[in-house]
C-alpha cells in the first residue's frame, strides 16, 4: 500500500470512529440532563434510573471519545506534519478553545458521575448540563477548524508563504456556521435515533417497558426534531458549497457539464471516462433551483474544473446520495413520530411502529459517516482548499501502511468493546434498576 493512501485511510478511519464516539458523547449528556430534571421534579424513580443508566453510557463514550480525540490531535502531526507546520498557527484558535471546553467537560463529568448523594441536588444537575453544553461547544469548535480547511481565511498566501495571519478571522471563516449547524443537528438526530432504536427494541421484547418507554420518548423527541430540521440546514450547506467549493458540489451531484436548467441527478452510476451518469434519475432545472433559487441560471459543472483539481466523483456522489436518501427517510420517520404523539397515540403499541424505529437505529450514523465522506473526499485533492494539496502535507516517514493496519485493529477492537459493554449495560437493566 502506498504511504500516501495509507495516511489518508488512517486519518479517515480515525475520524470515522471518533465522530461516532464524540457525537454520542456530546448528545447523551443532554438526554441525561433532561431525565435528571424530570427525576428532580417528579421524584419518579424510573427517571433516576434512566439518568444513572445513561450516565454510564456517557462515561464510556466520553472516555473513548477523549482517547480517540487525543489520538487525533497527535495524528494531525504524525501523518500531516507539513500541513500542521503551516496551518497550526492559523486554524489553531478553535482547537485551543476546544481544549478549554473539553477540560471543563471533564471536570463537570467528574462532578456529575461521582456526585450522587454528595452534592447539592441542583448543583449536581447543573454539572450534568455543563457536560452537555461544553461537549456541544467542543463539537462546534472542532467543526469550525474543519470548515477552515474547506474555506480558508484569515491569512494571505503569497509566493508559498503564509503571512498576515489572523486566527480569529480564520475561526469565523465563511463555512463555520453552516458546517457546525449541519454537524450539530446531525449529532442530535443520529444519536437520538440510535438511542431511541435500542429502547424501542427493548419495548418490543417487553422488557422493563416503563423504563424503556420513558427513555425512548426523551431520545426520539430530539432525534425526530433534528431529523425534520436537517434538510433546511442541508440546503444552506449545499448553497455554501456551490459558492466556495464548486468542484465539491459538482462531484456530489455527479454533474459533469455546465448547463442552463441544471438537472438534479438522483442515484445513478457516474462514469468519469464518458462524463455521463448511467441509470440516474434526472430532474431538469432542480439543481439550478436549489443553488440559485431559479430554474434557469447555469450551475458550474466539473468541466469548469481542471482535472488535477477534481475530487473523486463516484465516492463523493454515492456518499451524498446515501446521506440525502437516509436523511429524507429519517425526516419522514420523525414526522410519523409526531403524528403518533399528537394524533394517534394508539400507534405507540403497534409492532410496526416499534419495528420502524428498531430498523432506523443505525440510520443516522450511516448518514453521518456518508456526510463526513462528502465533505472530506469532496475537498480532495486539497487539504486546504485551493492552497495546499493533501499529497504535499503527508509525512516523509515511510511505512505508514503498518500504522494504518495497527489503527484499524485498534479501532475495531475498541468498537467491539464498546458494543460489548453497552450490551451488558442493557442486559443488566432489570437487575440494576428494577427495585
Amino acid at each position, binding site marked *: 500500500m502506498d504511504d500516501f493512501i495509507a495516511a489518508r485511510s488512517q486519518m479517515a478511519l480515525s475520524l470515522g470512529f471518533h465522530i461516532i464516539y464524540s457525537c454520542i458523547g456530546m448528545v447523551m449528556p443532554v438526554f441525561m440532563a433532561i431525565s435528571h430534571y424530570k427525576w428532580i421534579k417528579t421524584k419518579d424513580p424510573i427517571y433516576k434510573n434512566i439518568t444513572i443508566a445513561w450516565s*454510564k453510557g456517557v462515561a*464510556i463514550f*466520553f*472516555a*473513548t471519545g*477523549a*482517547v*480517540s*480525540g*487525543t*489520538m487525533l*490531535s*497527535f495524528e*494531525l*502531526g*504524525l501523518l500531516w*506534519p*507539513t500541513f*500542521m*507546520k503551516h*496551518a*497550526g*498557527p*492559523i486554524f*489553531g*484558535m478553535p*482547537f*485551543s*478553545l*476546544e*481544549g*478549554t471546553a*473539553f*477540560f*471543563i467537560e*471533564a*471536570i463537570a*463529568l*467528574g*462532578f456529575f*458521575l*461521582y456526585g450522587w448523594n*454528595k452534592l447539592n441536588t441542583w448543583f449536581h444537575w447543573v454539572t450534568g448540563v455543563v457536560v452537555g453544553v461544553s461537549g456541544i461547544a467542543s463539537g462546534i469548535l472542532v467543526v469550525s477548524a474543519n470548515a477552515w480547511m474547506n474555506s480558508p481565511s484569515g491569512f494571505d498566501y503569497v509566493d508559498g508563504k503564509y503571512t498576515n*495571519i489572523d*486566527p*480569529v478571522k480564520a475561526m469565523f471563516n465563511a463555512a463555520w456556521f453552516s458546517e457546525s449547524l449541519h454537524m450539530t443537528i446531525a449529532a442530535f438526530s443520529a444519536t437520538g435515533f440510535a438511542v431511541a432504536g435500542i429502547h424501542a427494541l427493548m419495548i418490543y421484547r417487553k422488557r422493563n417497558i416503563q423504563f424503556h418507554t420513558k427513555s425512548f420518548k426523551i431520545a426520539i423527541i430530539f432525534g425526530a426534531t433534528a431529523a425534520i430540521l436537517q434538510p433546511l440546514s442541508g440546503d444552506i450547506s449545499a448553497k455554501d458549497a456551490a459558492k466556495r467549493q464548486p468542484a465539491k458540489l459538482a462531484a456530489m451531484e455527479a454533474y459533469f457539464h455546465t448547463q442552463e436548467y441544471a438537472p438534479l441527478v438522483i442515484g445513478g452510476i457516474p462514469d468519469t471516462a464518458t462524463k455521463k451518469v448511467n441509470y440516474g434519475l434526472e430532474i431538469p432545472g432542480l439543481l439550478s433551483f436549489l443553488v440559485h433559487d431559479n430554474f434557469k441560471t447555469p450551475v458550474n459543472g466539473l468541466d469548469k474544473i481542471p482535472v488535477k483539481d477534481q475530487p473523486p466523483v463516484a465516492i463523493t456522489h454515492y456518499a451524498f446520495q446515501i446521506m440525502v436518501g437516509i436523511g429524507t427517510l429519517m425526516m419522514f420517520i420523525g414526522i410519523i413520530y409526531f403524528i403518533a404523539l399528537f394524533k394517534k397515540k394508539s400507534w405507540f403499541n403497534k409492532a410496526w411502529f416499534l419495528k420502524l424505529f428498531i430498523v432506523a437505529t443505525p440510520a443516522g450514523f450511516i448518514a453521518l459517516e456518508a456526510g463526513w465522506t462528502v465533505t472530506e473526499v469532496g475537498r480532495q485533492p486539497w487539504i486546504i482548499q485551493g492552497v495546499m494539496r493533501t499529497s504535499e502535507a503527508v*509525512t516523509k*516517514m*515511510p511505512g505508514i501502511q503498518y*500504522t494504518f493496519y*495497527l489503527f484499524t485493529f*485498534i479501532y475495531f477492537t*475498541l468498537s467491539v*468493546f464498546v458494543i460489548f*459493554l453497552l450490551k*451488558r*449495560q442493557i*442486559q*443488566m437493566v432489570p437487575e*440494576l434498576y428494577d427495585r
Partner: protein
Amino acid sequence: MLYVVILFLFAAITLYFLLGGADFGAGIIELFTSTDNKHRTRKTMYQAIGPIWEANHMWLIITVVVLFVGFPVIYSEMCTYLHIPLLILLLGIIARGTAFTFRNYDAIKDENTQNFYNHMFVYSSFVTPLFLGIIAGSALSGQIDPTAKTFAGAYIFSWFNWFSVSVGFFTVALCGFLAAIYIVGESKEIADTKRYIKKAKIMNVAAVICGALVFTAAYFENVHLANWIFGNKIGVTVVVLATLSLVWLWMIISAQKNRQWIRLLAAFQVSMILIAVGHTRFPRFIIFKDGSSMSLLTDHASGKTIDDLAIGLMVGSLFILPALGYLYYSFQKKER
C-alpha cells in the same frame, strides 16, 4: 505574550507530569502489589482518582495544542522524527483510559473480563510514562538526526538509545513515587498506610537508581547532563532544594504528621527536577545530533497567533482553574 504562552506550556507539562503522572503511578503501584492486597489497593486508588482522572489527562491536550498552535515547526519536527514513540505513547493512553473506564462501567463484573481490564490497565500505566520519558529524553539530548540516511537512523535510534530509555525508566519510577505518596494520604487504616509508605520508599529508591542510570547513560552517550545541571547556579540550587525537600518529606512521614504536606513536598521535589532540566535547556526544545536546535524564542508562530493564543489560555484558565480546584476540594472533603 510569547512568555505567557511559554509559561502555560511549562505549567501544562509540569501539571501533566504531576497529576497525570500520579495517575499513571496508580497503575504502576497496582502492577507491583502482591495479589493478596491488590483488591484493596485498587479500591483505594479508584476512590482517590475516580472523579479526577479524566481532568488530569487534559493537561496533555493543552500541551499538544499549545505546541501545534504556538510552535508548529517544533511540533511537526517532533511528530516526524519521534513518530514511533509518540505512537506507542498513544497506544498506552488509549489502552489505559479505556481499561480504567471499562472496568468500572462494565455492568457485569465477572472475574475474566475484570482481569483482562486490570492487565490492560497496569501494563499501559507502565508503558505510557516510559515513552513519555523516552520522548522527553530524545528531544532534549540531541539524539535526533535529520540527516540520517537509513530508516533506523532517522526514526528509531533517535529515541531507542540508552539515554532516552533510562530517562523513560526514571519517569516511571517518579510516577510510582508520586502515586505512592498521594495514596498514603488516602488510606484509612494503619496497616494500609504502612504498606503504602513502604511502596513510596521502594519507588524512591527505584527513582534514585534510575536517576543514576540516566547519568551513566548520559556519560556513555556523550550527553553532558551533569554539566548542564551542575554547571550553573540555578541548576545547583534547584537540585539542593529537591534533595532537602525529600529529606523533609521522609522526616514528616516517619513522624506520621500532616498528609497534605507530604503530597506538596513530593510535588515540589518532582517539579524541581523538571525545572532543573527545563532551565538548563531553555529556550531550546528540540536539539539535533549536529548540535543545532529549535528554540521556543525563535521558532514560534507569528505575533497575532501568539497573542490570541495567550489570551485564549488566560481566559480559559479563568474557567478551568477554579472549577478544577473545586473538584479536588469537593472530593477531598467528602472522603473524610
